């Protein structure tokens, strides 16, 4: 069109929350409950925060009830530490596990519709990797709302934000962060409906943009989970942490990879190969089908590689079976009926009488924008970036290290979300109003958009997208090798060059789906490069990151990977130490918080 892109208007607020999902709005709710006069603007890509991807989480959220006669927070802390393959930060583990129940009660008192026991109390169910007595037997630690726990949490924090007058701006993306010196003072956003750029000046900014696994062919993530928050940080010269740790959920429904919750195995579901053998008994003799996700995903792929998978013609893919036929009627009808409906609808099988086809699906990002235990973002020297906070899946505090246990993510949203909110309240006490819009505000965004709007060439969006997704699945997936990772990095460089030659379908700025998706694809390629580089550099296997050429965990790599990439493929590596405060405190069972062996 030739029209110059400009900032249409500027808004100001006290707190800008980029991403209005479970974590972002838990933080917003905390701030507004304690300080109702705070002006908060929360941004989301979808039409309402209620539709954030948090709402699709199914299984539950782990929290030890202090009244539980058998369970104790220290067991939960151990499970999380072991589950992370000794890479999570122990100060964060302690904080989250000790405050979990308090936050569950907060949700319930604010109206969440938890499933109940016969006594009317919050019900609990077992979940993978959560055990009693340091790994002895399964624990009933996960609180849940049928199989829509995520929806319950999302609705509750959204309700509270509504109650306290948080302003929402939907259908927008944050395209660059704004800085005054080294202090973050807000962001530039682009609105989908009108096609306009706005500047938002804020005393404090919280990045809570969630996950990013849409660069994998088979993924549980929604259309908009394209790692935008990570790119905001990278563009600002900040590092991201542990991105090589991508969690593949073992039971995605064959095809697009729709999530079939771990709760199915929690209620007794069993994985079987083509001979109907319950193969997890071989890979994890104690925990079996409730072993952590990375272990099960690798076991499934191994079964498939060794010829014991089942081939599905319609989807041209291999899978294994999840057997639910033996579960009691009540479980089918009351506890897991929603997930079963997915199998009926999207795979055409009846879980009551037939075996369900499942395959590992890219699900969750353990890594993210590095923060301390209070949600304050750190740069590559672990110095706090004033005015910038991050929480939820987009951040890495790190609660999960290189592997996450099921039900610990929803827990993280509400615990670290709250802690971040509290920290922002502290920060706001002395924070000054940002003075003016920086003179070059928007230039990153305008450059990027102009490139796409004016691109010449005959590349096809679908081709680049599919090439990316297949390449990542094959070469930066569950099993990695140096050869494949190097090939992936070269391919990503090519894709980056190609993406700017996709001719745009329409040059209108209004509701331009093509432009939006190409912008997102560019982000996916950027994030993919960081994942591949991190995977290449970590010459060991730990948690979800598995190197066939380095299959053992090595003490040489007892640190978090930091990667900065202000320009594509100019990566700078750094290390952040793993916090060992539980081990160092020499308290109860401290030796279990050493770099222990990980067997289930």
């Amino acid at each position, binding site marked *: 069109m030739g029209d110059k892109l400009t900032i249409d208007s500027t808004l100001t607020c006290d707190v800008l929350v980029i991403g209005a999902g479970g974590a972002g709005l838990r933080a917003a709710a905390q701030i507004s409950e304690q300080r109702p006069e705070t002006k908060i603007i929360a941004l989301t890509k*979808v*039409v*309402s925060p*209620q*539709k954030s*991807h948090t*709402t*699709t989480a199914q299984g539950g959220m782990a929290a030890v009830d202090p009244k539980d006669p058998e369970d104790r927070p220290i067991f939960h802390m151990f499970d999380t530490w072991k589950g992370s393959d000794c890479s999570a930060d122990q100060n964060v583990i302690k904080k989250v596990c000790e405050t979990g129940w*308090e936050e*569950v*009660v907060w949700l*319930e*008192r*604010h*109206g969440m*519709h*938890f*499933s*109940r*026991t*016969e*006594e*009317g*109390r*919050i019900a609990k169910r077992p979940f993978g990797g959560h055990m009693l007595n340091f790994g002895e037997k399964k624990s009933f630690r996960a609180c849940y709302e*049928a199989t*829509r726990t995520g*929806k*319950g949490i999302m*609705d509750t924090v*959204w*309700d*509270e934000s*509504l*109650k306290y007058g948080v302003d929402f701006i*939907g259908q927008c993306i944050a395209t660059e962060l704004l800085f005054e010196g080294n202090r973050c003072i807000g962001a530039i956003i682009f609105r*989908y*409906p009108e096609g306009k750029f706005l500047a938002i000046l804020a005393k404090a900014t919280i990045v809570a943009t969630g996950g990013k696994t849409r660069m994998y062919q088979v993924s549980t993530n*929604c*259309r908009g989970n394209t790692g935008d928050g990570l790119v905001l940080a990278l563009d600002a010269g900040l590092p991201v942490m542990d991105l090589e740790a991508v969690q593949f959920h073992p039971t995605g429904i064959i*095809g*697009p990879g*729709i*999530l079939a919750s771990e709760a199915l195995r929690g209620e007794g579901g069993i994985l079987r190969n083509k001979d109907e053998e319950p193969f997890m008994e071989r890979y994890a003799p104690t925990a079996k089908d409730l072993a952590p996700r990375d272990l099960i995903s690798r076991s499934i792929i191994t079964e498939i590689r060794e010829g014991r998978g089942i081939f599905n*013609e*319609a*989807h041209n893919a291999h899978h294994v079976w999840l057997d639910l036929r033996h579960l009691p009627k009540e479980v089918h009808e009351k506890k897991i009926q929603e997930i079963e409906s997915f199998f009926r*609808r*999207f795979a*055409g099988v009846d879980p009551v009488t037939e075996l369900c086809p499942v395959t590992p699906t890219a699900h969750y990002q353990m890594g993210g924008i590095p923060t301390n235990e209070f949600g304050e973002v750190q740069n590559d020297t672990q110095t706090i970036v004033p005015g910038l906070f991050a929480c939820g899946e987009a951040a890495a505090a790190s609660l999960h290290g290189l592997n996450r246990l099921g039900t610990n993510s929803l827990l993280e949203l509400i615990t670290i979300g709250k802690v971040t909110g509290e920290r922002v309240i502290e920060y706001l006490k002395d924070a000054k109003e940002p003075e003016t819009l920086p003179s070059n505000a928007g230039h990153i965004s305008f450059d990027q958009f102009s490139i796409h709007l004016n691109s010449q060439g005959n590349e*096809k*969006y*679908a081709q680049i997208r599919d090439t990316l997704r297949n390449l990542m699945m094959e070469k930066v997936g569950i099993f990695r090798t140096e050869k494949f990772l190097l090939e992936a990095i070269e391919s990503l460089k090519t894709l980056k060059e190609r993406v700017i030659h996709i001719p745009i*379908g329409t040059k*209108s700025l*209004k*509701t*331009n*789906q*093509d432009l939006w998706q190409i912008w997102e694809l560019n982000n996916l390629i950027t994030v993919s490069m960081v994942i591949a580089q991190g995977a290449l550099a970590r010459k060991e296997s730990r948690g979800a990151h598995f190197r066939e050429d380095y299959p053992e965990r090595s003490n040489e790599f007892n640190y978090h990977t930091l990667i900065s990439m202000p320009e594509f493929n100019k990566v700078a590596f750094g290390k952040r130490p793993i916090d060992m405060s539980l081990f160092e405190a020499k308290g109860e069972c401290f030796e279990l918080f050493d770099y222990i062996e990980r067997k289930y």
Partner: protein
Amino acid sequence: MSKSYTITLEINRYDPDTQLSWIQAYQVEVGGILRFVDVLRKINDEQDPTLAWASSCEHAQCGSCGIIVNGKPLLACELLVKDAVEQFDTYTFRLRPLTVAPVLRDLVVDLEKAYEKVHKALPYIIKPAPLPPEGDEYRISQERLETYIEATQCINCFCCATACISSHRNFLGPNVTMANIVRLMDPRETATKERLDILYREDGVYRCHTSRACSFVCPKEIDVSHFLALGKEGKF
């Protein structure tokens, strides 16, 4: 290999810059277990990148992809092509955007505006019941929860509001009314009078004329009209 066949989608187009609308037909080869969102994506990939349509989770949990297919409001991610062929007994499908909000482009409507009505239901707990002791949760019996839990599954996809025979302008809508009724039934809420005032607003539950179209189309299979009937009964 499951056999493939051709379907025709006749889709309402709208260009916000010229404000022109027209109907555009696309012929698409399909086969296997394809959802309508997969078909729309296929059209973008192979034929027309400018066709705009909304979705997010693509497995019927978020309610972002509502459209009208051959007169029926539904979720584009939930409707499988093979089921549609059977249910509607045709290979030709008319696709229109939902009617509850202004059209932004093609099948994308400004649901953010529609959500402004949802906010009027005050979906949170306005005035909590006295807190349980010792940091405990409220006790709610399974029987009590059963009476309203179904309604809490609502994802505000606006299919019911689209199907509703009452005017969007004069009625808050079935989903909005139901959200208020959920909290009227929730034992933790004590602001009964305030909620009844919302329920019996000029644009409240008495605008419902019991067509039960809402229950018929709800993708979550919630009996929305049951809860609206409870609202008219008023025993809260």
